[in-house]
């Protein structure tokens, strides 16, 4: 099994989730994060003073999938999360050692 972590633009979440549902991904976990990267933060100006906001709001999604779905998932995310502008985000993938569904105790691919 693989854990795929994608960091994407906030407003792309719904599109990505739709795309993943279509290829059979049934579960994922979403976290609000703040990103720092090539896309520089912005300045907010209050009363003539600048405040630099270095970190931009992003969304992180974590999906554990069967190895053979990995490529499809990556492709789906890549296609739907892309705007072509800087700051679109990253996809990382990792090996998962074990997976368990708490409700049933099922393990491995059946758990996800």
């Amino acid at each position, binding site marked *: 099994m693989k854990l795929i972590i994608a960091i994407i633009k906030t407003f792309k979440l719904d599109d990505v989730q739709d795309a993943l549902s279509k290829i059979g991904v049934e579960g994922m976990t979403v976290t609000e994060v703040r990103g720092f990267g090539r896309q520089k933060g912005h300045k*907010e*100006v*209050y*009363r*003539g*003073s600048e*405040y*630099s*906001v270095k970190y931009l709001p992003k969304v992180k999604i974590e999906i554990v999938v069967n190895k053979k779905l990995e490529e499809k998932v990556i492709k789906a995310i890549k296609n739907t999360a892309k705007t072509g502008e800087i700051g679109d985000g990253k996809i990382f993938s990792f090996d998962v050692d074990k997976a368990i569904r708490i409700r049933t105790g099922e393990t491995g691919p059946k758990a996800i």
Partner: protein
Amino acid sequence: MKNLFYLFSLLLFSNLFGFTEVLADNGEAVLDTGDTAWIMTATALVLFMTLPGLALFYGGLVSSKNVVSALMHVIAIACLMSVLWLFGAYSIAFTDGGDLNKYLGSITEKFLFNNVEWNALSGTIPENVFFIFQLTFAVITPALMVGAYVERIKFSSVLLISGIWLFVVYAPVTHWIWGGGWLADLGVLDFAGGLVVHTTAGVSALVIAILLGNRNDFPNNVLPPHNPGLVMVGACMLWVGWFGFNGGSALAANSNAGMAMVVTHIAAATASLTWMGIEWFKNGKPGLVGLVTGTIAGLATITPASGFVDPKSAFIIGVAAGAICYYFSVLIKQTFNIDDSLDVFAVHGVGGMLGTIMVGFLANEAIGGTAGSLAQAKVQITGVVTVAVYSLIATFIIVKVVQTIIGLRVSDKDSQEGLDITSHGERGYHL
């Protein structure tokens, strides 16, 4: 509040102004229920400006780890000043000080509201209503200064500085202008506190900010206002409450009060749009925090003028307030690098002084009994300079004394973690 001379002329010409008669057949002053109703209402409105208005205005501007602390400063000051007002400060401001009357009232005479018939009148309203109305002014003035020292000051110093300041700065200056002291004799115009409230608070705030020193993160890593919505809500409450502040300072429910409300509102709206316009032009985006800062600037600036000018002048004052206070907020922080954190001096100090001077030129004789003139403007400038200098020196000494006794700043570690947890043991949000 008009000075005593003005009050007198009002009584004299009350028929001219369409007042209901305030003297009973036998010539004694009697209570007017309408005036009383209005000043009691105004009292509630002015308390509302501080609690929660000003508290929210400041609370929204600080970072989320200091929001409890900012709220705490404001409400603790409000409580303490209320008690001290009863314990002598009212007496200093509003009794006859005998030989020293030019400068001070007597602290003992109405200490604890002693020696006052419970149903004594002050004009057409009960003196107890006058007492509580004035109390709300004494509460908000030191609370305004909170904006200068948030996010780094020790809580005990807040209380100590504010308490001493009430007796040393606020009560005497009030006596000078509204209590029959030397500036009243001079004929200075200050309808609702351009000098008494805004100049004293603004200048003193600047002094505290300088002596206390900048926040560690100032100017580069300071966090932006954590909640512009709160700032706006606070500003709106201040705006609404200011109807009581300025309108109530007529001490009656009459055309003078009505006109004070009109000009207050027009100046506030105009200054808001002015500030918004400047930001739109300079940053490309009109911001909410900026707009409502303009509101407060407009309100502070119209305050001394509110019972003396007409709506046209209010519009002019509004434009000037928005532009000049904006300019000063940049100047103090960027150019002078002084961390008057929430711009108390630029907004209240500059606004109060500006309005006090402008009314010298713009006063409309029909409305307030005094015509604008160069002579009057000179009187006004005398008032501004003396009040500012006195506030500066007195506050300098107070702060130095407090610094020596208990110190001023929390540790760097505590300010890094935030005053909410380190000074008050509470967290602003458990969402």
